[in-house]
């Protein structure tokens, strides 16, 4: 059980910018309340660093309610820390004990270069979506009526489950191979399960996988760590579905 007023030892990755090498730096923080969120604990540390004239720790964060996908810390060897189904911003200090040492590192992947300290560049994910993560329909509003094509509830629900991906990159960070297949598989699955996505399903999967490979991520070897540490509990079923879609496109490239 965590006490009301904890003292913690932090080991944080500090790196000035993408050009200079970084290193782990030790900090001690006192007066940590178990009700604080993990990011609020870093806020307190930064407040202290600024007052002392030091450079505060740079980290990505925005909504602080687990949906924007911006926060991205590798805490004690796990993406988003020890709890399951939550992002870093939803982790609270009551998950730690007085006197603990906490390692805090950025996502590590060739595809996610460090910008500063704990901030990484996840532009690769955007480029993968730009390569094909969409349905090519113009925004005229003059499409079919929304109810013109019924979609089986089960398919709609499965598509939704895949669509809950927040693009945080925890899958890449936690994968021993640094593979991005859970992210790509989730988007491919969402559109493969909906009739609206069918007309361009083949180009889509081929183009997205091609872009993924060009971004420097590793290859998937079905280790399965990604689905365990995904804050939205996306299953590696989406990777199996992406593989099927891909083979389909290889065997018969035309739609």
């Amino acid at each position, binding site marked *: 059980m965590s006490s009301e007023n904890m003292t913690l030892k932090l080991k944080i990755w500090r790196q000035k910018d993408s050009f200079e090498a970084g290193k782990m730096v030790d900090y001690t923080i006192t007066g940590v309340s178990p*009700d604080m969120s993990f990011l609020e604990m870093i806020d307190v540390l930064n407040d202290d660093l600024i007052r002392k004239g030091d450079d505060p720790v740079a980290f990505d964060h925005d909504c602080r309610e687990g*949906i924007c*996908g911006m926060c991205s810390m590798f805490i004690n060897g796990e993406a988003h820390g020890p709890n399951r189904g939550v992002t870093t911003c939803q982790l609270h200090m009551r998950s730690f004990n007085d006197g603990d040492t906490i390692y805090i590192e950025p996502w590590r992947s060739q595809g996610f270069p460090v910008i500063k300290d704990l901030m990484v560049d996840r532009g690769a994910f955007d480029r993968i979506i730009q390569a094909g993560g969409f349905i090519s329909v113009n925004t005229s509003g003059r499409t079919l009526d*929304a109810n013109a094509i019924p979609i089986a509830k089960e398919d709609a629900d499965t598509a939704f489950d895949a669509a809950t991906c927040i693009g945080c990159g925890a899958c890449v960070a936690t994968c021993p191979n640094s593979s991005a297949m859970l992210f790509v598989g989730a988007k491919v699955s969402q559109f493969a399960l909906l009739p609206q996505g069918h007309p361009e399903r083949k180009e889509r999967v081929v183009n997205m996988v091609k872009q993924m490979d060009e971004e420097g991520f590793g290859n998937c070897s079905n280790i399965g760590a990604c689905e365990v540490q995904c804050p939205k509990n996306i299953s590696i079923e989406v990777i199996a579905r992406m593989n099927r879609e891909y083979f389909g496109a290889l065997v018969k490239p035309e739609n």
Partner: protein
Amino acid sequence: MKLDARIPEGPLDQKWTRYKNSVRLVNPANKRNIDVIIVGTGLAGASAAASLAEMGYRVKAFCFQDSPRRAHSIAAQGGINAAKNYMNDGDSVYRLFYDTIKGGDYRSREANVHRLAEVSTNIIDQCVAQGVPFARDYGGLLDNRSFGGTQVSRTFYAKGQTGQQLLLGAYSAMSRQIGKGNVKLYNRHEMLDLVIVNGKARGIIARNLVTGELERHSAHAVVLCTGGYGNVFFLSTNAMGSNVTAGWRAHRRGAFFANPCFTQIHPTCIPVSGDHQSKLTLMSESLRNDGRIWVPKFKEDAEAIRAKKLKPTDLPEDRRDYYLERRYPAFGNLVPRDVASRAAKERCDAGFGVNATGEAVYLDFSAAIMRYGRTEATVRGIHNASEDQIRELGEKLVEAKYGNLFQMYEQIVAENPYKTPMMIYPAVHYTMGGIWVDYELMTTIPGCYACGEANFSDHGANRLGASALMQGLADGYFVLPYTIGNYLADEIRTGAISTDTPEFAQAETAVRQRLEALLSANGSNPVDYYHRKLGKIMWDKCGMGRNAEGLKQAIQEIKALRAEFDKGIKVPGSMKGMNPELEKAARVQDFLELGELMCIDALTREESCGGHFREEFQTEDGEALRMDDTYNFVSSWKFTGDASNPALHKEALIYENIKVSQRSYK
């Protein structure tokens, strides 16, 4: 300057059609020579960028986050309204229009709201075509649910993540255009000034947040889709980065700011747990369907609970005060957001609040659990079920309805809401006010537009649930793409706009000087120190209840805080490279000016309406008292060069189609 909303002539339901039929067009060849800057990539920004790029304009999109998909539209939970009438419950464009005007407490523009209701149906068609996985029923058709302030089911949803799914739809439409080269994306870029050349918006000064460089970007039109300003309160349900800077800088360059005091305070949020709190988390409004709100009836009990000497579950019924049921027997726990929020504040101010800070009330599900449990026991044919059995059955049903919300609550508060009542307190959620725009969504600066929450146009003094998503997408997909052409039709001969002009140089220098001043103040307090102070002033004096005396004090306090900020701020690092503290400092500097304008606006508006409750203007029963004869107008503020002396311009609101009446929930 006389404000002209440029509302088209003709009957209400034909204005938009007539407008579209007669508006000027830009031919495709000419569109290729026209640049449009879009700032912000939320629902409004991403949908506008995608639409304008498809039409052929060259679009530059800016967001301060690492990716356009992070915009805070993503956090919207409940749903999106549309007058589809799929449920066959009598819904229509007119009803959606009427509900929105009435919900806004008769302080919005009829023509804009009617147009919003008209295009609402297109949004759903569009999103389904884009692959947005809305909830469906077993027949495979779209499901709807009902929301506050209406009598029909017109809310489309994707579990509790509707905003996320809609934003990702708009993001993918925009990504498609980025992939084609029609949109150039500038992520991790923040707009710090608007550049005006010969009276027209011609570009922006943006800071590349990675390199720290200031960049000049030119365009034939600038569209601000930069969201709301709720973070002026420091604690709100907004994202940490949500800010008013783009809008405020445009305001300082001549864009009027309308109804800044209209803020929506949501009644069911998780209360503040301590001084370290950085933001607040919303618990969906739907919980009020089954939860009963109460505080202890006697102060000694409240004190004992605060000291943790007494548990709420140990307090007998006759020592509890179900104050909403007591005050509003007809609507009970389901009164509108503004009413529920004010009532909670009233009880806590009187000393009946329950958590350590004294700022929380209970939202209790035990009655619902037992009620559901008894029904379930009957359904299963268990006639002599024990209390425990009934409770267990009931908890299962409540879990099926609200499981994810209960889990989220437990994650944050570390208490089991099935066993002990939830604690909730109101929090700032949405801002109805914003940059003034005309019917075409153009601000008072020619060529500068504002869409989504950034503008003031559609929600009056109070927004209905599930209408924010509707407005953001309506503006971006279906309104702006038509209206902007009317302006750009004159720009086809302008040619590329150079950034190598005195106007750009002057703006860039001003930004540089401002940032350098922040860096060189070399005081002793980090930015958050001042932001928290500002937030407290705003919350205490320009929050749920406002009065002339408090507002006057707030104005003085904010002025003093601004002076203190300029000298006492400590921003580490330099202009070069990534410097999040510098970003925050510039944003808080703008909040410090906006806060004062909000108080001035609240002081000027001597009536109570929607989210604006002036304590001097209430009925004998403590309800909001609107002054339709004197205050039926939009307060639109012009920046005069001195933040403390803005000039008020009034846009009269004319209701030709709706009869203005007083709301009652007794």
